[in-house]
């Protein structure tokens, strides 16, 4: 019997995997990958709650999250390209201009 708990636990595991990716990765592109993982984990969670509650709002939410994620990737990659053209690298360690 798969209950809501199972799905939520799965969502939490995926979210934490994404979290450790965000912390760990030094390459900006790979950092974006980890962000995608987190967004997907949340999507699963919403969809699961939507099914188990019989409420369609969760799926709507997921739908919009997908839309937002897509546009975020577009703009983010555009910025990344610009940075690469200017600096030649997208390593996080080299982006310390705001060191305070």
């Amino acid at each position, binding site marked *: 019997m798969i209950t809501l708990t199972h799905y939520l636990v799965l969502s939490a595991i995926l979210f934490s995997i994404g979290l450790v990716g*965000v912390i760990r*990765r030094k390459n900006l592109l790979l950092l974006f990958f980890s962000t995608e993982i987190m967004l997907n984990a949340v999507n699963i969670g919403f969809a699961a709650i939507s099914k188990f509650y019989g409420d369609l709002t969760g799926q709507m939410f997921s739908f919009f999250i997908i839309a937002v994620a897509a546009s975020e990737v577009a703009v983010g990659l555009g910025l990344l390209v610009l940075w690469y053209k200017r600096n030649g690298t997208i390593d996080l360690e080299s982006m310390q201009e*705001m060191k305070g």
Partner: protein
Amino acid sequence: MENYVYIALFAPLVGSLFAALFGDKPKTLITGVVTSFLLFVSWFASIRLLGYVGENTIVHVKMMDWIAAGNFNIDFGFVADQVSVIMMVTVTTVSTLVHIYSIGYMDHDKSFNRYFSYLSAFVFSMMILVMSDNFLGLFIGWEGVGLCSWLLIGFWYHKEDVSTSVNPAISPAYAANEAFIMNRIADLGMLIGIFMIYWNLGSLEYDTVFANIGSLSTGTITLIGIFLFIGAMGKSAQFPLHTWLANAMEGPTPVSALIHAATMVTAGVYLVVRSNEIYALIPNVGYFIACVGAFVAVFAASMALVNMELKRIIAYSTLSQLGYMFVAAGLGAYWIALFHLMAHAFFKSVLFLGAGNVMHAMDDEKYINKMGGLSKVMPWTMGIMTIASLALAGIWPFAGFFSKDKILETAFSSHHYFLWFMLWIGAGMTAYYSFRLIMVVFFGKENYKKDGKHPHEAYPYVIAAMLPLAVLAVIAGFFEEPFVEYVTAILPEYEPHVSSGTFMFLLVVTLGIALSGIALAVIKFSKGNFDEFFKKIGVHRVLINQYFIPDFYQKAICEPYGKLSEMAWKKIDMKIVDATVDFIAGFIYKTGDKARAMQTGNLSTNLKWMTLGLILLLAAIFIRPGM
């Protein structure tokens, strides 16, 4: 009539504020003229009040509420009864004439305007002091005159400090501080007395206090009387708080004439006279006051015998005469004290003004042995000063004779023979040193020619300003009868009871010693006075150093206190207080410095911090007690 009270009170204030507008500008004659005129207005109002106030008509005005805090209610109230009107007239008369004199004296001074502002402010404070109808207003005036005295003694504050061997007063700024601080010490006593009055009686107004004072225990009343007298001791420079008065001569001479002859130093006597109903209940304290007064009379006169500075001699003379007033007040003869106060104000101020003339003519020279033979060039001044000295010595028919004689009678008739004896010796010394002054300054060899000075008589209007005071010094004695009648409506009547035989004997004896003092001064003058004699018997050094009392104060009080202050500053303030504040600041600074390491600009680090924050937030929400 009430308007006259306000006019008399506030005219000097208006003058002071007017002169203050010109404070930083060079001399403008208009300030002197306007302030003198306003003081004349105040004098006129006082005279009107003198005519009006009589047996049953006292003018009592309440200007406004001042403090109304719970049970504590004090108003700004002013009363013009016989005692205060006498004081008002004395103060305004002397003040007006001193103002006019100052226009001539401060002619070449570049702080001319500031001077008149301070002088009028002083008169205003003195008027508050004598016209107030409660102890707190008295205290305000008390402090005000102390402040203005400080401002005026230190008028030439830019003069440098010198060692005490060159000038015992060190510098005008130092003398001003000394005067103010000594007065402050005495004010503590007075404040305690006022507190005790309020604590026990619940009010500070004269009427209420004097009506109910009898209900307290004798011990309390004694303490109140002693504490109030401590305040008077400071203001009137009685022993041991007397050293400031001689050093206050560093200020301009008209200031000495006004403040340290006629008005501020008499505030102490006024306090005792005003509180006569308190002192009447504690005759022991009164006797103590009289003893202090007699001691000071002789003590100060002794120091004047050998002194070589012109104004210091007159200052010691003031000190001595204040002692006489306190003897009278202490023995219960309050109207006699007031009478002597009034007469003394007239002749002492004109004596100072004459000395000012001499100093001005001699380019601010203050040593009498550099002068001599000035009677040829300054006849008017010599004449006026001689009249004043005769009045001071107590020669008939001048004013001093009547008042001083009455005091001696009082001492004798109340069987305090030792007091009488001291006062009698004091009278002799007074006569001697006054005429020693006159002879050395005005007669004899013209020592000033050696220094190439060219003295000349003062301006005519300056002499004209001095003349009314000189006239009053002559005739004031004849007003004794109306004075007594006027004043004893409020003050207790007191007549020394002596048989007519004793009376004549006392008269002769007193007059005798005064005349012999004068004779000694005049005759011995050609042989250098008694100075050689004093040097021979060894007292000269003691007297000229003021019995070494200032040195004693310096070593015993000032220096240890200075060391205490320095220790408190270095050890306590800097090491503890400052260190604590610095520690707090340093702590915050270091914390900020360490927290700065969070801002690496590295995105990875930021993300790590974000995760940490997320965990903390979730933990805070999730892990709650009782879950």
